[in-house]
């Protein structure tokens, strides 16, 4: 197929899940499982189309399609462009594949739900996935905002899905307040940019902004970053995240944490790298600071949690911080590490949340202090959880080792020693938190046995196995993935001018790039080992001491009030604006 024909198929991965979503409520009247099965078919179609595009795109081409052939006239684009660059296609592919796995898992874990609720669930699930794919592929700022909103509205219903749980509704309220504030922020930011430059297309905006970024542009940038960071759950904006993950069903938490949160990062990448260009403002330093704070605070809060899913949710905050740190380096190695970590995080965090969801679903226990001894009763879930935890920990055969190693070496290349040390500290705390969780939930001996637990069904087994298998695959063959997938993606982000000209011209090529990675680097291996040892000691110690004062202060700051979380988020946006405007 020619490039143009391939590119014209790009809206299909969005439209197919949407069609499935529209059919779901009606199909639910026939049978509860039918909508989920149809969604799987629709997502399969989306994956097929994305895979059709993959060889060309990962080969370095940028496929661009203007909806309805409303191509740019004299460099001014009124129509909406879908541009598949390697980075966007990678995220879209991850969203479609992991989304399908999660739906398959849902089918066997939550298949006993009533037909109407399962139909609504399938509908919202697919709309969320379609929005993620659309946001990854679009090259238009306002269209990005629309997909952001679709994802947001779909997430509200999913958060409050278990209506009998009061906390689910509480979480839905908080996510509503914060996401709505974020959407205003993005909307005004996009409006300001349009008012100043008369453009919405990334490429056109990039051309207009190159070289002369004025004060209102920086305020717009601050508003956009503030809004998308709320979705990403970076630190002052993260109030909704832990609550939403705690209360939602297991596969939904996996979807939120593995994919939806990443939408924020993808959008920030688009705005910072593709629209403004990394050099235009002190934005990279800002990302570094926010990222380090998120990484540390998320890890500490994770260590202090007693609720298994909440612990994993705070760890998501920490991982998003690590992503931001990787992006902030601005080098091929660092961004490559961040992109690699984006995929890794989608894999291992989905896996962990599926495990946590399975525990909650089958025992009714949510608190670590009440669990224990599950390893004997749920060997498969335990194995999967351990694999996920080791992946996050950055232990060699698993995927976290590769991406963390890349980010570490990028930091060291830039002589950011302080940041490197802070990253190591965050990693230690993360390992301690997950190790503590694994010990308390699965391995700790427990006198009172659990009742008879149902067996894992085939779909659940398939979901856990495929995600765990991917975790291992991405850890074992980093050279292959770096070469074929990550390097083109980074190349697109590091050459925004190439991307821009490709979007405006309707097609283009990205230069090749090589990202070196030394798997057996002694320093990296040693630091991973050292982290493991220190983390073991920390976890052991933390189980025995009472809560230290700083942790207590942090916990008190997360006081659960929607008003205060909104205040944090708005303050964060203002701080971002202030830093960007004053530190130029």
């Amino acid at each position: 197929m020619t490039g143009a024909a391939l590119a014209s198929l790009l809206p299909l991965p969005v439209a197919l899940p949407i069609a499935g979503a529209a059919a779901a409520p009606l199909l639910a009247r026939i049978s509860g499982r039918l909508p989920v099965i149809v969604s799987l078919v629709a997502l399969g179609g989306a994956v097929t189309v994305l895979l059709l595009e993959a060889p060309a795109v990962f080969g370095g081409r940028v496929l661009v399609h203007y909806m309805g052939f409303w191509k740019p006239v004299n460099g001014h684009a009124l129509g909406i462009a879908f541009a598949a660059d390697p980075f966007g296609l990678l995220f879209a592919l991850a969203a479609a594949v992991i989304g399908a796995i999660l739906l398959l898992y849902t089918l066997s874990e939550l298949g006993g739900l009533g037909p109407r609720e399962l139909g609504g669930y399938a509908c919202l699930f697919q709309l969320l996935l379609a929005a993620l794919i659309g946001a990854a592929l679009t090259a238009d700022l306002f269209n990005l905002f629309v997909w952001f909103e679709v994802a947001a509205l779909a997430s509200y219903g999913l958060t409050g899905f278990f209506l009998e749980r009061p906390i689910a509704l509480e979480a839905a309220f908080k996510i509503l307040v914060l996401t709505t504030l974020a959407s205003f922020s993005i909307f005004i930011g996009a409006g300001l940019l349009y008012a100043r430059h008369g453009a919405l297309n990334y490429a056109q905006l990039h051309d207009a902004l190159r070289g002369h970024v004025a004060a209102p542009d920086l305020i717009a940038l601050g508003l956009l970053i503030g809004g998308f960071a709320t979705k990403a759950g970076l630190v002052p904006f993260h109030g909704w995240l832990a609550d939403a993950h705690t209360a939602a069903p297991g596969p939904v938490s996996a979807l939120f944490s593995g994919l939806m949160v990443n939408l924020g990062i993808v959008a920030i990448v688009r705005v910072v790298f593709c629209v403004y260009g990394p050099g235009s403002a002190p934005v990279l330093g800002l990302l570094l600071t926010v990222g380090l704070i998120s990484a540390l605070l998320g890890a500490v809060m994770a260590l202090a949690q007693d609720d298994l899913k909440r612990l994993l949710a705070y760890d998501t905050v920490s991982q998003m911080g690590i992503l931001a740190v990787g992006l902030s380096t601005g080098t091929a190695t660092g961004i490559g590490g961040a992109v690699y970590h984006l995929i890794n995080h989608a894999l291992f965090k989905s896996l962990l949340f599926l495990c946590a969801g399975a525990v909650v679903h089958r025992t009714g226990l949510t608190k670590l202090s009440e669990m224990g001894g599950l390893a004997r009763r749920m060997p498969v879930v335990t194995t999967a959880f351990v694999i996920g935890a080791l992946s996050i920990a950055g232990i060699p055969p698993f995927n976290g080792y590769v991406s963390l190693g890349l980010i570490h070496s990028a930091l060291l290349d830039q002589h950011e020693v302080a940041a490197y040390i802070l990253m190591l500290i965050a990693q230690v705390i993360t390992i301690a938190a997950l190790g503590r969780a694994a010990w308390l939930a699965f391995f700790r001996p427990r006198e009172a046995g659990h009742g008879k637990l149902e067996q894992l069904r085939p779909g659940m087994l398939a979901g856990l196995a495929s995600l765990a298998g991917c975790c291992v695959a991405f850890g074992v063959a980093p050279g292959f993935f770096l070469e074929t997938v990550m390097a083109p993606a980074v190349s697109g982000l590091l050459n925004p001018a190439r991307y821009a000209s490709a979007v405006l011209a309707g097609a283009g090529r990205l230069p090749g790039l090589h990202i070196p990675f030394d798997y057996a680097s002694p320093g990296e291996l040693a630091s991973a080992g050292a982290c493991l040892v220190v983390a073991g000691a920390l976890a052991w110690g933390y189980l025995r001491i009472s809560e230290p004062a700083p942790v207590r202060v942090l916990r008190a700051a997360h006081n659960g009030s929607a008003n205060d979380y909104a205040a944090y988020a708005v303050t964060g946006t203002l701080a971002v604006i202030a830093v960007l405007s004053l530190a130029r």
Partner: protein
Amino acid sequence: MQPPDRQPPDRQPFAGQPPDRQRTDGRARQEATEHEPIHRPWLGTLIVAGMAAALAAAMAGIPREHAALPAIARYALEVALPKWGLTEPVNEVVYGTRGFDTFGETFLLLAAIISVVLITRPRESRRGYFGEETAAGREQSESDPAEPDDAREDAARSAEGQEQDERRPADQAGPRTPDQTPLGSAAPETAEAMTVVVRTAIRVALPILAVAGLYLVAWGYSPGGGFPGGAVIMGVILLVYAGFGHRRISRIARPGLLEAIEIAGAAAIILTELLGLVLKGSFSANWLPLAAPQTILSGGIAQLFSASELIEVGTGLTIAVFALLAMEHDWTPDEQDVSREDSEASENSGTAGDSENTDGSEGSAGPESGSGEAGDRPRGRSRR
């Protein structure tokens, strides 16, 4: 499939887990509510002042009313007539040139409506053991630790229940599937009917409003479009409801029917856009021949899109409003609820409605799988 540990399991704090860390009981709640957050007004003022400053700084630096129109806006004006046959550039942009945004927005509305339907849904019977329900019972009793014996609330609730039972026709006394739930019946504040004056006024206004709603859509070359038209249609249905009571609309306003119409509208939108890809090689390209400007068909697919959106928005908003109206208080587990369901279950133990319960063939059909509907319900408030 035995639900483990119905009783709160061993709650003794193990070593290293200080008791206050798992405290979710009364004391923590007390503390939370006693501390009046005096910081909020001044902190709020401060933050708002900061936001005002940022916005003012941004707004001072953007073009004012004398700037030239952006090139793409000018382009949108220029193509409206020749390329779409539309004299209304806004409709042209919304449903035509940037129709893909509207495509997303339509499904955003679908997401919202399905979210509302999900959040307002009544209980459905589930098969198998759901640990989340066990956790929910615990959480509910924690969130309401010493539930006051609240006569007023009981009275309100029983009034609500009575009203519902009165409304429910005798032949529907069985287990209520969502489809049988009459829309809009549960709200105690709904009047049966209004006075003659109001009804007459509504009779007069209705046709005018309905025509106005359709007019907004049908003449795509003049201001209007699917969304306001659909919202007006919702207003019409609401007026009938408010003026004549729910009986008049109960035949139309069934979720089964409305949802089907809504999905038909959504499907029409998908088809409209998708046919562009099939016939013209680009998603959301115009594939209809252009009629002369200023006729009912001018605008090609823009008009089709607009009309489909009318259907989707009108029915969707109606579903949302009536779902809110019909929302019952049936998710918090309490005696009244459980006993009602118990009695219903025993009443209809032989009817088809229960057949779902018995095929708990999935997983290991434990001894308790059949009782998953009523028996597994946590009874957080049964102490009352």
